[in-house]
C-alpha cells in the first residue's frame, strides 16, 4: 500500500513505518488533501475516524496533525500525519470527509492550527473570545484567560 502512495505522490510521502503493527504515513502538509482524496477513492479509506494534533515545541515544525482513517472494505486502519510550523495553514479535509468539520474546529481551538478552506473555523469547546490554545505544551496546566474569567464570570480568578 505504501508503494502505491509513493508511486502516486513521490517525495511528498516523507516516511512510512509500522509502530506496534499500526501503519503510519507522514506526508507533506501541502499535499494532505490530495493524499486524503487518494486514500478515500483509490484505497477505500471511507471513514475519517479522528483528527487531532500533537505539539512538539523543540522540532523545526512544531505541530503534527494526525488523521486516523478506517476502511470498511479492508477492515484496516491507516494513520496519516503531516508536520506544520506555527502559523502555517493546513489544507482542510472537510470536503473529503464532512466528519472533519468539528474535529478541525477542535484542533484549531486547542492548538491554534489553521485549516485552509474550512468554511467556519472557530472555537468549539472554549468561548469564542478566549485567548490562548490550551493543548500547546507552553500553556501551563493552571493557566487560564484571567481577563475573560473576570469579565464573564464576575470573579477575580479562575484558580
Amino acid at each position, binding site marked *: 500500500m505504501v508503494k502505491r502512495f509513493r508511486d502516486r505522490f513521490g517525495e511528498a510521502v516523507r516516511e512510512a513505518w509500522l509502530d506496534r503493527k499500526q501503519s503510519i504515513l507522514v506526508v507533506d502538509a501541502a499535499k494532505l488533501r490530495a493524499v486524503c482524496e487518494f486514500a478515500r477513492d483509490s484505497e477505500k479509506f471511507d471513514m475519517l475516524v479522528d483528527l487531532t494534533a500533537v*505539539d512538539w515545541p523543540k522540532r523545526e515544525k512544531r505541530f503534527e496533525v*494526525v488523521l486516523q482513517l478506517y476502511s470498511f472494505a479492508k477492515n484496516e486502519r491507516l494513520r496519516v500525519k503531516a508536520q506544520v510550523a506555527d502559523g502555517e495553514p493546513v489544507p482542510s479535509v472537510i470536503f473529503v*470527509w*464532512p466528519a472533519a468539520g468539528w474535529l478541525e474546529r477542535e484542533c484549531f481551538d486547542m492548538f491554534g492550527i489553521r485549516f485552509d478552506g474550512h*468554511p467556519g473555523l472557530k472555537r468549539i*469547546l*472554549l468561548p469564542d473570545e478566549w485567548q490562548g490554545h*490550551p493543548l500547546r505544551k507552553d500553556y501551563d496546566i493552571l493557566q487560564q484567560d484571567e481577563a475573560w474569567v473576570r469579565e464573564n464570570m464576575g470573579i477575580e480568578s479562575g484558580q
Partner: protein
Amino acid sequence: MDETRSEGMAPPSVELAVPGADEIVINMGPQHPSTHGVLRVKLRLDGERIDGSECIIGYLHRGVEKIAEHRSYQQFAPYVDRMDYVAAVSNGLGYCEAVEKLLGAEAPPRARVVRTILTELQRIASHLLWLGTHALDIGALTPIFYCLREREEILKIFEKYCGARLTTHAFRIGGLQYETYDGFEHDVKRFCDDFGTKVDEYEQLLTGNRIWVGRCKGVGVLTAKQAIALGVTGPPLRASGVKWDLRKAMPYAAYDRYDFIIPTGTNGDTYDRYLVRMEEMRQSRRICLQAVENIPTGPIMAKVGKVLKPPPGEVYHSIEAPKGEIGYYVVSDGTTQPYRVRVRPPSFINLQAFDTMVRGHLVADVVAIIGTLDIVLGEVDR
C-alpha cells in the same frame, strides 16, 4: 470528486447564517430538560420547519486531555470514567487496553473474561438509561421506572465488585485490581435470568405503540453513506444498515470466544435505532451468560511493574462503547507520563450528524433526535 457534496450533502454547517425575512432563530438549552445535560442548540425555523441548526457545546469542558499530560499512566485511568459517566467501565477498558498495547503487555485470560462481562453489563445499563430517558422525552412516562429498576441491579454488581456504582475505575493497566467477589457468577447469572424477559416487556410498551411509532418512524433519517461520511459509529451507524461492530471487526478483550449477532436496521431513522439498541441488550445478555459459564482461573494481572515507562512510540486503540467507537491515541516519549492522550469521543462525533438529521423536521422532533443520538455531554465536552 466530491461525491458527498454532489448528493446534496453539504459538510455540517458550522455557523448559522443570518435568517431570511420569513425565518426566525430560536434557542434551546443549555438548561433544557430534553438536552440531557448542557447542550445548547440554535434552530433556524421557517414556520415550524427547521432549515438549519447549530450546536453550541463546551459547557462541561474540563481539559481531560491536558490533565493526562500531567499524570502518570495509572493516575489518568480514573479520569476517563468521568467522560461518559454512564458507561465508565467501557471508557476504562479502552484506555487500559490502549496503554497495554503501548507497553506490549496483555491482560491474562481471566482478567479479559471478567472485563468482557462487566463491559457488557455496562452496555445494558447505558442502553437502559438511554431507553428510559428517550421514552420520557417523547412522552412515555412508564418505561423509565422499569429501566432504572433493572439498571439498579447492574449497579449493585458493580458496587459489590469495586465499591463504586458510576465512576467505577474497575480495571487497571495490565488486568484487574480486584478478584471477583464470592457469588459474582451467581449475581450475574441471576441478573441475566431475570433480564431475559424484560426487553420483551419494554417492547410491549413501545414497539407497537401508535404514539411511539408516530414520533419515531421516519424521524432523523441518516443514510449509510451519510453516516460513514460523518464518521458516525455505534448503534446509529448500524441502524443505517452498516453491519459493523468493533467487537467483531477487530475483537478485543475476550469477544472472539463468544457467539452473538450484530443487529442492523434498514431505514436509519429513530425507530430503527431504537430497535437496534433493544436487540443489542439481548445480545449483551447472551454474551454475559456465555462468559459467566466459563471464567478461566489464573492470575488477574499481567506483569507490568509498578512504574509504567512505555517505550517511545504511539498507539491508537478503540473499542465498541455503548455509544460508538471510543478511541485512545496515546503517544509516549519514554517517561512515566503520557506525552499526549487523545480521546476519540463517539458522542462528539455522532452529535455532528445532528444538523443533517434535523433539517426539515418540526421543533418537537428535535427532542426525539437528541434522544436517539444517545449523547453524554461529559464526553462531548471532555
